[in-house]
């Protein structure tokens, strides 16, 4: 099974350790987590997958830190990237 790595306890995204196809089961590993989710999207190695539903306007957390804000509602198992998260620092899109 493909794996995704959680980097910190507070995180609501994990980093996939290999390319993942839409619909594939992904094992979430790291920090003693035991979770399996279905990927809703196709995503490449090292891209982010949502561990929880992230409502529009909520912080996206990776490394235990804020890396951006959800611009739409992001369901669990979704690809989290420039189409649905925006920087809190400069610009965005």
């Amino acid at each position: 099974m493909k794996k995704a790595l959680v980097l910190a306890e507070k995180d609501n995204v994990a980093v996939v350790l290999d390319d993942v196809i839409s619909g594939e089961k992904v094992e979430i590993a790291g920090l003693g987590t035991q979770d399996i989710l279905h990927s809703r999207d196709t995503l490449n190695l090292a891209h982010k997958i949502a561990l929880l539903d992230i409502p529009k306007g909520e912080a996206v957390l990776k490394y235990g830190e804020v890396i951006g804000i959800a611009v739409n509602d992001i369901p669990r198992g979704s690809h989290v990237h420039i189409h649905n998260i925006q920087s809190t620092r400069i610009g965005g899109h």
Partner: protein
Amino acid sequence: MEKSGFPGYRRPDNQVGTRNFLGIIAAMDNANPVVRTLSRLLYGSLAVCPGFGRGQMGEDFKLHRRSVIGLGSNPNLGACLVISLEPDSAAEIAEGIRKTGKRAETLSLQDDGGFIGVLAKGLEIGQELILQITRQQREICYFSDLVLGVECGGSDATSGISANPAAGMVSDWIVEQGGTVIMSEPTEWIGAEHILVRRAKDEIVAAAIQKCAGKYISIAQEQGLELLKNNPTLDNIAGGLSTIEDKALGAIRKGGSKTIEGVLAYGEKPEGKGLYLMDAPAAAVENLTALAAGGANLMLFCTGRSNPIGFSIVPTIKISGNKKTIKNMSSDIDVDVSGIMGGTLTIESAQEKIIQRVVSVTAGQMTKNEILRNCEISISRIGQSI
């Protein structure tokens, strides 16, 4: 890690070289062609052609001049031959370089017979200098003599979870040995400033960190720039980095976890040992140039999707944790840490792997980009030429 040091070139100013070249330096870009021709002819020399150097003013000129002198002062150059259009700029630069105790000779196109005159005299002087510097032998030097420049380029989202943290552990190890580490690319501190500020030696350094990152935020805002697609770049984005914070939080890991002793200007040498930050932009060639001008005698260059470029004066070890890059760009990556994401390599083992390469490269093993001559030099501009 039983070794306590490496064989290096001890210089008159007590800096240590991991290499021993004659630096043939173009004070300005109109001397680039004769410098390159000379360095092709003289085995054991390097052409140092940083670009520009004429018609610059104010802070832009000061940065350029400081950096040219800094490059000439790098301990990997045993001596220098500075060539310019006219004699004054060559003389000033050579004088700055001689403060290290090394020889710096000069030639000018105007006074020394034009292109062919400079070529002929350059061959004579260059040969004599290389005869002299190659007499020096390596002697026992210590990891406390290392000045490590850390760079990331062609990053992707593997960088922050493999190559960068492994390099960060090497950074920590070097500081623990009494050595120096310099990390730069302030745009890639944005989103992670609070982490760096927490580690500042004192409030002055903390303020300097904020000010430095803030400068790049102001520049972006004044120009109405969106950082997205400038930094992170299109290849960073394709590699999974979504925002500058996402990139920065991974990028700063290459500097390790030690106290930050100060914030250096572009090409400025640190006053003491330990971990320093430097105000040098993220573009790889300009950044490596700044680190070399600041005295780095070794570089660790972490990459995700790969930016193969290296640096001629200072050996640059390329590290990647992206298994696709390892497979597709094997001519360009020195240390493979893709096992971290593959679950077959711990970060501690990756640190050890990199340190083994540090030990062999400082002693003379070449890096892949060194062998291919895939190296470039460029000093950043911060102003308009007139």
